[in-house]
């Protein structure tokens, strides 16, 4: 069978189109390749970042626990019984007596108890100075024992099992964060302590466990192994709440007013330009502004989550306003006409029809704005939130730090070997929060959009 179409010469026009077609396909292929390349490069960097953080941070989630068998030796714990209630004694007098007793307990040399229990665990006659022996447990071990005793004075004379954290240096040695071949002069721990630690590890006296202290403890300088993120987490939480309570309603209301109600005039144009400019202002400038206005002028406390929250609110407002306006702008004019045509007032149009359809996008934009605020560091440094705070802030007016600032502080800690992994672990916690927030945004968005 002969091919009829092949024998017919191509028309000039078709040939022209074909020639062009090759060029068009070519440019499409090039564009696709470039796009793919861009994505691969971006993903590659993200993967690199995550891999690095995970590699460094995961070890920080396990920590060395030292299983002690402590004896509350009456020889060392040379203190009378806690004061009991005496008939006719007022509540204040009783409390004063209790406190006096607690002070006496605190004056005792609890390190001796720790030392004794460690010596009991070491092989008989093991030669190690008391000072060096005490470098193995974290320095807060004695506080643990004292608190146990204060809570239950009947422990006097008894022997109990108690788990304490190994010191940061011991942890480093166990995890191999320190080069074991370094000479004695460059090691943090003395040789007998290092050998004893290795023994403890092999006989199970020291074991690895999940580092709950990272999430349940506050920052600590005296006992680095026990330092945790709780204070920073609570500080960040307060600030996020303040941002949500202030920035979201103000931002959304401002956007609605500007987009739906404000007459178009020079003034509103000016405001619009300035909001866009504000969104581009470096965040550190907001910190300066916050320090000047909230602290110097309004005399709000320094280092407080309240001030941090206010500064982050200022910083987040333009983002929320711009995103909300964008969402409102995207509502089809047909919907607005339908509402107005039915005799809805402008407010009714906005609240009955426009807001419900834009709600998912406004919500997403808001959550992402809040997530941004959560990760912001620079402005917080300028309002004093970089101070070392070893307590959980009870109110937003107390001194506190924030997660990203905690990362910055740990990154600068002198005990590099130990805090490198702690820093990475804190970054992981922050990233998990961010991913969770973004996940919530995506989830709510898809849920709400399906319903709409």
């Amino acid at each position, binding site marked *: 069978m002969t091919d009829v179409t092949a024998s017919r010469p191509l028309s000039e026009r078709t040939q022209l189109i074909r020639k062009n077609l090759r060029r068009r396909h070519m440019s499409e292929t090039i564009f696709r390749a470039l796009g793919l390349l861009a994505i691969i490069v971006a993903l590659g960097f993200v993967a690199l970042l995550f891999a690095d953080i995970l590699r460094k941070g995961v070890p920080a989630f396990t920590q060395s626990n030292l299983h002690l068998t402590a004896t509350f030796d009456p020889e060392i714990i040379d203190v009378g019984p806690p004061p009991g209630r005496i008939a006719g004694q007022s509540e204040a007098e009783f409390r004063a007596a209790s406190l006096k007793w607690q002070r006496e307990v605190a004056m005792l040399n609890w390190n001796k108890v720790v030392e004794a229990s460690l010596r009991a665990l070491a092989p008989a006659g093991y030669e190690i100075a008391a000072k060096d022996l005490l470098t193995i447990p974290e320095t807060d071990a004695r506080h643990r024992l004292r608190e146990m005793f204060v809570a239950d004075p009947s422990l006097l004379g008894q022997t109990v099992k108690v788990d304490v954290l190994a010191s940061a240096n011991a942890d480093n040695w166990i995890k191999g964060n320190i080069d074991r071949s370094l000479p004695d002069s460059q090691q943090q721990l003395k040789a007998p302590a290092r050998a004893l630690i290795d023994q403890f590890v092999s006989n199970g006296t020291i074991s690895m466990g999940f580092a709950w202290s990272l999430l349940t403890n506050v920052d600590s300088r005296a006992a680095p192994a026990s330092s945790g993120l709780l204070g920073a987490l609570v500080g960040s939480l307060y600030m996020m709440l303040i941002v949500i309570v202030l920035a979201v309603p103000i931002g959304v209301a401002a956007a609605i007013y500007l987009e739906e109600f404000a007459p178009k005039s020079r003034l509103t144009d000016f405001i619009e330009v300035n909001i866009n400019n504000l969104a581009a202002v470096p965040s550190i400038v907001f910190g300066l502004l916050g320090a000047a206005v909230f602290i110097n002028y309004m005399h709000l406390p320094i280092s407080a989550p309240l001030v941090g929250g206010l500064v982050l609110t200022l910083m987040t407002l333009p983002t929320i306003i711009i995103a909300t306006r964008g969402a409102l702008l995207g509502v089809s004019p047909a919907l607005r*006409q339908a509402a107005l045509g039915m005799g809805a007032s402008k407010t009714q149009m906005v609240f009955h029809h426009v807001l*419900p359809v834009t709600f998912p996008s406004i919500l997403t934009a808001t959550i992402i704005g809040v997530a941004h605020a959560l990760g912001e560091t620079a402005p917080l440094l300028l309002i004093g939130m970089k101070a070392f705070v070893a307590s959980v802030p009870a109110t937003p007016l107390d001194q506190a730090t924030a997660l990203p600032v905690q990362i910055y502080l740990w990154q600068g800690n002198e005990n590099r070997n130990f805090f490198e992994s702690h820093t990475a672990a804190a970054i992981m916690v922050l990233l998990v929060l961010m991913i969770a927030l973004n996940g919530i945004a995506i989830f709510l968005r898809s849920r709400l959009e399906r319903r709409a």
Partner: protein
Amino acid sequence: MDTLTGNTRVTQSPDVTSTPVELSKRTTRLTARDVTVHYGSKQALHGISIDIPDRAVTSFIGPSGCGKSTFLRCINRMNDTIEGAKVGGTIKLDGEDIYDPSLDVVELRARIGMVFQKPNPFPKSIYDNVAYGPRIHGLARSRAEMDEIVHSSLRKAGLWQEVKDRLAEPGTGLSGGQQQRLCIARAIAVSPEVILMDEPCSALDPIATAIIEELIDELRENYTIVIVTHSMQQAARVSQKTAFFHLGNLVEEGNTSDIFTNPRNKQTQDYITGRIG
């Protein structure tokens, strides 16, 4: 007028034999005098004067861009919502100037309903679409009364049979023609005195068009209707009065039968015979 049967009527030549209406005997509902509209510096309407009769269908015809929609929007002041639109002249509803500053547009739009060219139901349930107007205007005192309004409006719009089992489903899930009838139901739920329709059938197929034309014909009994249309046949079929617009001017207006049988103006004649447009 007899009922429409399928789409046969739609393709017919202009049916100028529809019920002759003595327009002069009807009361005038709306009067427009010398209405001008500017969009920014561009003038879209050059002094329109027309009387719109009560309980009759008035159709506006004319080539694209001649200002039909613009004039229609003047009647319920939807032009107020367009940035830069300026309206001059007077429009009176029952002798009352609708552009009087003391008049509330919200009330005006409850009295003058509008159906748009593209069906635009709210992204809410069918029930809520229809109930919205009565709800915001406080027309129903009880749940039962609201149900009654919604049901009767859907019935009047010829949609009841199709949606009676799915009132809770979103109105946006209906077909185009059903959506447009839903919009009509929504408009008549507040019992407006005047209904404005801007090319209500332009997005519909002949069958849906026929249903809506039939509906318009029934609504005429109780409402004053103004309809913009590009279909000469439709104007001829449903309206009693016709106005021909051209380049922002009202060229000719009168009984529909007169306009289609012996137009006085050359432009009108050219348009209805398809020479311009």
